[in-house]
């Protein structure tokens, strides 16, 4: 076995690792609160993990020896051929095709599919917003969900106190999120890298604590009920022809609202990415000191990236409030930030189709694997680490991503 499956050393390491893993696993699973000691459960879990990792390791070893060359090389050639073929078609065609599919989706599908699709689109908006901050500008923001919360609570409060329509509240929510972004960004953006990460994490928690504790404004953990859905002028043919104001309570209508927001966000992020500002952001991401030397006003541009990301978060938040018609601090925890971050990382930082793919994968896959719901976050965490180990640029890497950002600083 050791001759066909690689060196014996690899398997010795694997065995040591598995033994170590069992030592860590057994106390958590094998000692009951009543003082009983059992081995069955922990051995079962350990067995699955050991078998899966052994199979993966064996495949990897065989692959390294070229055992699958007969299958993989024609496959790789075919994929490369398909890719060059697809590259000949202008991207606008692909985008319009995707848009057509998205627009046709609610017709002929049930409530469940529409609900999941709305969730996917909300997360695409959030992911694209965070993508501006982390993917384009290279600032790790772990409190991004705070802006989502600001947007959601802005619309919620405006709706229940002043009965402000959704479409008027939308720019207000975006503006307030941008202001929040500047308030958070101003003191923190002079820091770099990891300090920024922890400070934004802290700010995210502060926003959540305020939402949770400021009873007079936010009604605390009970949340705010009775938010109005978006409205629209709709042609009516009853009696004389005219327009009447309807409340968009149907999922189909809401789906088109968020689809519109997503298209807007995508176009905005794309235009920003390939503008002077976007180039400056990428320069900051690749090497901040060099960018500054070349005359980029790094502080202002970082603040701008932060505020832009916040705007998209705020828009998505306002829609979220209008869609759920209920907001509570529960929806804006750190786990949500981590999930949006996981989408951006999984899809590919700085890549718009990548972020969409990431959002689709992380929202739709758990729906498919409903019976493994409990293991969702475990898988997210594990996937994040595994992605960083094996494919740090994501599933659909951005085209413009410097070699330097993968080097050691």
């Amino acid at each position, binding site marked *: 076995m050791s001759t066909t499956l690689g060196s014996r050393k690899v398997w010795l390491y694997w065995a040591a690792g598995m033994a170590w893993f069992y030592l860590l696993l057994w*106390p*958590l699973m094998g000692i009951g609160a009543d003082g009983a000691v059992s081995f069955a459960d922990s051995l079962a879990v350990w067995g699955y993990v050991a078998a899966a990792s052994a199979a993966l390791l064996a495949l990897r070893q065989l692959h390294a020896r070229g055992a699958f060359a007969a299958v993989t090389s024609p496959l790789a050639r075919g994929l490369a051929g398909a890719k060059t073929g697809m590259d000949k078609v202008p991207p606008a065609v692909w985008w319009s095709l995707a848009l057509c599919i998205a627009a046709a989706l609610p017709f002929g599908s049930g409530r469940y599919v529409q609900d999941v699709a709305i969730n996917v689109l909300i997360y695409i908006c959030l992911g694209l917003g965070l993508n501006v901050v982390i993917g384009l500008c290279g600032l790790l923001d772990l409190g991004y969900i705070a802006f989502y919360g600001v947007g959601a609570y802005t619309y919620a409060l405006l709706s229940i106190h002043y009965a402000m329509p959704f479409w008027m509240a939308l720019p207000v929510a975006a503006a307030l999120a941008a202001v929040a972004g500047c308030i958070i960004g101003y003191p923190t953006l002079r820091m770099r890298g990891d*300090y920024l*990460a922890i*400070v934004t994490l802290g700010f995210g928690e502060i926003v959540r*604590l305020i939402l949770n504790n400021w009873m007079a404004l936010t009604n605390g953990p009970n949340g705010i009920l009775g938010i109005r859905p978006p409205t629209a002028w709709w042609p009516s043919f009853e009696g004389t022809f005219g327009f009447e104001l309807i409340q968009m309570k149907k999922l189909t209508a809401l789906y088109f609202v968020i689809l519109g927001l997503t298209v807007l966000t995508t176009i905005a992020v794309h235009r920003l990415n390939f503008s002077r500002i976007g180039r400056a952001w990428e320069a900051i991401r690749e090497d901040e000191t060099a960018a500054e030397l070349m005359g980029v006003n790094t502080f202002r541009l970082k603040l701008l990236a932060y505020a832009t990301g916040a705007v998209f978060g705020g828009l998505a938040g306002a829609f979220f409030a209008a869609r759920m018609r209920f907001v509570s601090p529960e929806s804006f925890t750190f786990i949500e930030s981590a999930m949006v971050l996981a989408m951006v990382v999984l899809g590919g930082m700085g890549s718009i189709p990548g972020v969409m793919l990431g959002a689709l994968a992380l929202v739709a896959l758990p729906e498919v694997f409903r019976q493994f719901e409990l*293991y969702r976050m475990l898988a997210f965490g594990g996937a994040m*680490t595994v992605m960083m*180990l094996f494919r740090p640029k994501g599933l659909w890497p951005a085209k413009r991503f410097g070699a330097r950002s993968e080097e050691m600083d």
Partner: protein
Amino acid sequence: MEFFIQQVINGLTLGGLYALIALGYTMVYGIIQLINFAHGEFFAAGGYMGVILLSFLAAHGYMETHPWFCLFGALLLTMGYCAMLAMAVEKVAYKPLRYASRLSVLLSALGMSIFLQNGLMLTQGVYDKAYPTEFTHGGLDFGLITFSYMQILIVAVTIALLLGLNALVFRTRIGTAMRATAQDKVMSSLVGINSNRIISTTFAIGAALAAAAGIMIGLYYGSVRYDMGFVPGIKAFAAAVLGGIGNITGAMVGGLIIGMVEIFAAGYLSSEYKDVWAFIILIAVLYFMPTGIMGENVDDTRV
């Protein structure tokens, strides 16, 4: 006045625990410039190992006959367990990324943190787990002020661990090697220091201290929860930054300050916002004094 003194005692207890967690952050940051997001989870794992071991001992009646002996045994085993856990995490998630970009390592650490937190939840349940505290109740009563046995234990163990760590870092060969690796990894490996082993040891020591804090917080508050590592983790990081990241004495002082501020803010201002103060201190320190109280100069990759 009694209230004030009582608060000082409470602040010392909590601050000592924050200091123990902060040490792990600061040592790891000092040596590989990584914010180890999973550190809070080592602390939580310590809390859980504590409740598992102590419930086991209590169920077999040992807690009734030898409560203090059991406590110390559980403390040592827990520290060993978390050291093993930290070494495994370091080996799997950080070591392969030693020469990758900082963002990759940070995200890998974040992934590990989520993974471990949910691993704890899946194996131990979503609900709070209660510590068998009935054997260690009571305290010294000085009239209006009480000093519970748990507080005495926590302060004593904390001081012992801090002194032990100081001795380890400043008096032993391995401590010298750790300081050398923190200063210059290439140079120290040229003089024959196995930097991988030193990094692994640093993780193990940091996690062992966090585990001690975890078991003591469990005993102090009476229960543990799978997500208990998150907020104390950030606070301890704030303490490490306040003291000057990479500086061991600084982390101890910073932990005490954060604990005191939190207790006094909760006692005199508002208990709802007690978690906010650590963040505000963190932001203020980073803004006005990024080197912290005792830190050396930091270069532009950190701040």
